[in-house]
């Protein structure tokens, strides 16, 4: 036991003292935060689109569009007396105007053929749909009023339904926070995926390095191969946990410092600043929801801005954190022991590729499949259930399900299976490792590996 401890210490200290670790720990959260603030700035806060309108239809589309205009699209009259002239002028004014909307003389409320949206380059789908919506709304209103319904009635007729999803499994039926839940699911599972991958490969590299350095035999004349393997795996696990802890502390620090500044600017332009503030807070937590302005709007109630972490309200934080740590560690142990076996079996990195394939496939697949099944599908459906039970996929699938709430018995069962799984892979890996580390200059095949498992002593 003493020896494993010594090995853990060495593996841990040599990695933690590296400059790259320090830089990674420091820069990663900042980089992530900066990225999302950047994304928020360019997409989330979305500047108002300016659309020039040339209306030859005589329907006074410009006036109608301007009166019903929303915040995100602004309609102005196009300069010029002909379409060609307007187009030319628009081309010159491309910095100020995003698109040119053309209503041909044939345009009527019932026939819209020939209506064109001209732009320098492609018009993004988002912008197209915004403009189309505005035009549709105007045309719809005009049609209604043409059939004799007055404006007040029209306004009253408009449906304005908002859904508050409530999760009954939560205490007192707390509000279901879809944005945060989905975000957390994405973010946590991508963390598990990335870290198992990155640090599993580190284990493999470490073993391969010991082998190619020829220090392996010196080591195992002092310690058992299993101790050496386990010491390395656990030492690197400690590195990962340190990294997590640093990121968490750092993110908390950055957001705590930055939040007040961001909150101040909120007064001037509410949506933009609120979004930015949330982005900043979420930056370290939930990645992919952020660019989506709709989600951001759902996430924090305006009252929540006092703390940047409030968007997490409604999530089962305890089980998320505990479950994340458990499933991450379980998955890491499961996969890294297999990576260790690969490192032991091969003589150099290029040979490692063919053996990495079958190990990484379940990892990659479980991520891709889980996204479709859990996030885009039913988080509690049968497929999601099975994915979160099989030890090779459960670290990712279960972590992805966590924010949606998972019944306790499933957590326990999946946890037990995962423990069983990594005990099994560690056992197999240790047997391959034990033989592999002393095997030099031999081309290893799968057949060979399976034989090693049954070698004696």
């Amino acid at each position, binding site marked *: 036991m003493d020896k494993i401890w010594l090995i853990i210490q060495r593996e841990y200290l040599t990695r933690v003292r590296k400059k790259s670790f320090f830089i990674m720990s420091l820069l990663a959260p900042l980089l992530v935060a900066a990225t999302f603030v950047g994304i928020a700035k360019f997409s989330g806060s979305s500047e108002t689109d300016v659309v020039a309108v040339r209306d030859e239809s005589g329907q006074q589309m410009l006036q109608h569009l301007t009166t019903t205009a929303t915040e995100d699209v602004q309609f102005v009259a196009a300069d010029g007396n002909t379409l060609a002239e307007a187009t030319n002028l628009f081309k010159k004014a491309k910095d100020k105007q995003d698109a040119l909307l053309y209503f041909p003389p044939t345009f009527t409320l019932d026939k819209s053929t020939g209506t064109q949206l001209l732009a320098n380059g492609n018009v993004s789908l988002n912008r197209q749909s915004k403009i189309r919506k505005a035009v549709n709304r105007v045309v719809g209103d005009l049609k209604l009023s043409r059939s004799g319904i007055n404006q007040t009635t029209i306004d009253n007729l408009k449906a304005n339904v908002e859904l508050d999803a409530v999760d009954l499994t939560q205490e007192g039926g707390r509000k279901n926070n879809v944005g945060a839940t989905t975000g957390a699911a994405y973010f946590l599972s991508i963390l598990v995926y990335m870290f198992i991958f990155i640090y599993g490969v580190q284990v493999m590299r470490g073993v391969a390095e010991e082998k190619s350095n020829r220090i*392996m035999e010196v080591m195992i004349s002092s310690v058992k191969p299993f101790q050496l393997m386990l010491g390395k795996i656990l030492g690197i696990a400690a590195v990962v946990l340190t990294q997590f802890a640093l990121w968490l502390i750092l993110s908390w620090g950055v957001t705590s410092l930055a939040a007040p500044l961001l909150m101040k600017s909120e007064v001037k332009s509410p949506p933009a600043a609120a979004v930015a503030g949330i982005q900043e807070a979420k930056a370290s937590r939930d990645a992919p929801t952020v660019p989506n302005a709709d989600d951001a709007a759902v996430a924090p109630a305006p009252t929540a801005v006092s703390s940047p972490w409030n968007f997490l309200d409604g999530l089962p934080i305890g089980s998320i954190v505990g479950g994340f740590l458990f499933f991450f560690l379980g998955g890491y142990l499961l996969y890294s022991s297999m990576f260790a076996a690969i490192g032991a079996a091969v003589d150099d990195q290029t040979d490692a590729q063919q053996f990495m394939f079958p190990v990484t496939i379940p990892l990659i697949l479980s991520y891709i499949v889980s996204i479709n099944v859990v996030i885009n599908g039913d988080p509690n459906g049968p497929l999601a259930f099975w994915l979160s039970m099989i030890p090779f996929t459960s670290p990712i699938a279960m972590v992805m399900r966590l924010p949606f709430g998972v019944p306790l018995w499933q957590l326990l069962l999946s946890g037990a299976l995962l423990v069983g799984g990594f005990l099994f892979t560690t056992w197999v890996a240790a047997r391959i490792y034990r033989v592999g580390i002393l095997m030099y200059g031999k081309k290893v095949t799968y057949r060979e590996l399976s034989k090693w498992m049954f070698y004696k002593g």
Partner: protein
Amino acid sequence: MKTPILEVRDVHKQYAAHTALDGVSLDIPEHSIFGLLGPNGAGKTSLIRIITQITAADEGEIRFRGEKLNPSHIAQIGYLPEERGLYKKMKVGEQLLYLARLRGLGRADATERIKSWITRFDLKPWIEKNVEDLSKGMQQKVQFIATVLHEPSLIILDEPFSGFDPINANLIKDEILRLRDEGSTIIFSTHRMESVEEMCDNIALINRSRKVLDGPVRTIKDQFKTQTYEVEGKGRLMVMHPDFEVLKHQERENGHFYDVIKLHAGVTPNDLLRYLISNVEVHAFRELIPSINDIFIRRVRETMPESLVEQKPEIKS
């Protein structure tokens, strides 16, 4: 005689399709230098890995100072494997400390000993440097220090001089002799028999997984003496004598000659000398002692003639 430090009894080891050791028995006496000799693939490394408990024997028993070999003996064994290396990105001092502590040495003790060895080997300026910054020769010194730092009573060196430059090889040789004199037992394993024969007190020859011969070097050499002498001198030597047989005769310039003469049974070297003196001017007279290499080949030829056919080095595992 005292209990040997290591008793190997009828050890067998089988790898998938290859027998690495086939009933090998050895006694390694305390305070001596023991040569474990044989060609590549003979089974030397397999035997050493069993002694160092990296692998276990399929059959047979090994006793360390009379006790059945067990993990508690690891701290008393120092092993320099043939495949040896160091962590390249670790500092010399830290590395030595790490390896010593894995061998069960306390931190304070280890630090103390590292200092004295580092000084002895002139590595002091390098102690804070990464191993990769050291020259190969210096790395070899560090490896040797790591092997003996925990003051093992049994030191096993597998092909110790392969890759060592002559200066370091001599330095290491001196250290080995000193360690022996201070009470350690050293096992040399090598296929280059000539490189260690003058240092070894006892040897064992292994070929094709079996022990071919073992015993004190002196005894073995006496046993394999061929009663053959080299003679150099001046004059016309025409040996026509029933007691002697000339194996080789060379005429050299100015009437000098060089002969290799074998005595027949019951004839002493003095008989030959007397005969020579009465016939020629003798400049040199020397007994031809067979080298361990010669003995090995002779022995193998006697005991397993089939194995002299092209030896293919087996993959060691």
